[in-house]
């Protein structure tokens, strides 16, 4: 069947569908519609209500929390920002936040440089065994993180770099490099070759073509990889809890878990205030880069 025939056959069908959609649903269709939107509401509530709950808890006083939810109900009786102040003045949460930002940003930067050049080479250059290399990178992404912890602990101990945030960066690459390299390799394969080849014919070297022609076109893909790498590095807990020992060196997630264990009594308002704080950058990233994250997740995992 030729393309035009298929096109012609489809038009009336989709118009009929359009007409059907415009008609107001009645009877069974109406109930199906109500059921659908009910499901949508449930999905949204289950996803977002817990965030309201920690926000509410973070704004409650110790006394309110001790009295239990029944005493106040769904809404807090009044808003107290004391837990947020306490987080910074008494729990020293600023240092862990800065530590987290440093490691996540450095891991992202290294990931981007390494995965961009590798992704380009795997997409474009005549490398023998590129299938094998891609397979290895994929399998590395499946490697059990907790199995790495012991040997890396011994290595860092030997090098005298335990309880420092910088060795974490090396470990974080196991989260970030596989997905970023696959994503960028797929992204480069989709960019038409003509551009860079024109540059090559004009006498540019490969590296010049990569830097001046390909990278500018690849900015959206690189940006997507950077967002995913940052999220994955920012979210780590397993390596931090294994290699860091003293609170000033903790990353933010480890510091939060430590709040609960170091206090005589667990004050959920302080813990949840810190949870709200580290959720904010991620929530903003999702809101502004939703489409990119979705394409990144799917392009990074499909061939």
């Amino acid at each position, binding site marked *: 069947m030729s393309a035009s025939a298929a096109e012609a056959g489809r038009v009336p069908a989709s118009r009929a569908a359009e007409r059907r959609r415009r008609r107001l649903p009645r009877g069974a269709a109406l109930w199906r519609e109500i059921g659908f939107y009910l499901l949508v509401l449930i999905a949204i509530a289950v996803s977002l209500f817990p965030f309201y709950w920690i926000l509410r808890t973070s704004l409650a006083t110790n006394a309110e929390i001790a009295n239990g939810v029944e005493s106040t109900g769904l809404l807090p009786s009044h808003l107290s920002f004391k837990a947020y102040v306490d987080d910074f003045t008494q729990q020293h949460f600023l240092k862990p936040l800065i530590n987290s930002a440093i490691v996540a940003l450095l891991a992202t930067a290294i990931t981007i440089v390494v995965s961009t050049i590798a992704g380009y080479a795997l997409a474009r250059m005549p490398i023998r065994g590129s299938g094998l290399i891609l397979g290895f990178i994929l399998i590395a992404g499946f490697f059990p993180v907790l*199995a790495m912890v*012991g*040997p890396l602990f011994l290595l860092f101990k030997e090098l005298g770099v335990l309880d420092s945030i910088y060795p974490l960066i090396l470990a974080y690459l196991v989260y970030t490099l596989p997905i970023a390299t696959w994503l960028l390799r797929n992204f480069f394969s989709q960019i038409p070759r003509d551009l860079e080849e024109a540059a090559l*014919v004009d006498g540019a070297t490969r590296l010049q073509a990569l830097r001046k022609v390909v990278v500018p076109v690849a900015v959206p893909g690189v940006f997507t990889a950077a967002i995913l790498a940052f999220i994955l590095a920012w979210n780590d807990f397993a390596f931090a809890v294994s290699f860091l020992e003293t609170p000033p060196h903790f990353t933010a997630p480890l510091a939060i878990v430590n709040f609960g264990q170091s206090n005589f009594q667990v004050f959920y308002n302080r813990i949840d205030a810190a949870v709200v704080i580290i959720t904010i950058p991620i929530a903003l990233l999702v809101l502004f880069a939703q489409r990119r994250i979705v394409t990144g997740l799917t392009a990074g995992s499909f061939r």
Partner: protein
Amino acid sequence: MSAHLAAPAPARGHRGRRAARSRRDAQAQGDRRLGYALVAPVIVLLLAVTAYPLFYNLWNSFHHVDLSEAGAPQSFVGVENYTRMFGSSVWVSALERTIAFTAVSIAIETLIALVLALMLNRPFRGRGFLRAAILIPWAVPTVVSATLWKTMFDPRAGFVDYLLGGLHLPGAHTTWLAGVWTSWAAIFVADAWKNVPFMAIILLAGLQVIPGEIYEAARIDGASAWQSFRRMTLPLLKPALAVALIFRTLQAFLVFDVIYIMTGGGPGVSTETLSFLNWQTFLVATDFGYGGAISVMLVLMSLAIAAVYVRLLRPETA
């Protein structure tokens, strides 16, 4: 590339063509060398964080390496660490718990993710909002999801008991993290809340490449919605399902963060999984020989899971 280079050659005659070809060969060879140089960093770095720990673990697993002993003696012990592991009821029950958690989580999460993906595949007002709403739980750190659900399940500060009490349902005033099954329920909810969105997004991408016309055709042929889902959607969704299942099964099998934060393996040892046991052996018991044996098994089992899925869900068998 060859088309561009060949075009001006005839004008330059025989010599020009040969020069062009040798220039092209030189460039191809230079390209190949440059290609290896560009790929080398990613390979070296990934080998450093995977192959190096794997072989280190393998070596340790045949030795006695215990940091708690003075001088940390490292004597060769043969397969002693492995016989100890296979004979250990702690390891066996951690394995059983891990398998049970993985099987239950994956079965339920796949169903929910499929429903979410089918919903998101339909155009409706608020679709973008729903997608953003489910993406946020995926993107937040596990520390956030685990702490958040710990708050939600808290008998005093939590919402779950409050809701059950308000609706006069059984289960109000439960100290969830004090019981074995209630702890598992809380862990499952926290884990699913964070991870279902990933599956849903992958399945949605799979649904979006299925052409809408085939449904129209099936409907005209009198197929019911269930029939067209069963006979067309599911088979065509197989590649996406494979990707989602491989990623999620391995994640669930290696579950650690959420357990550490919510229950610390407790009450008692009732929520200890393999990854948790592995972490404890390394960093609490500082027994790197035994921990190495547990790690080697963990790697082998992960590879086996990946291999099984790749075999079962190969696109050709669809």
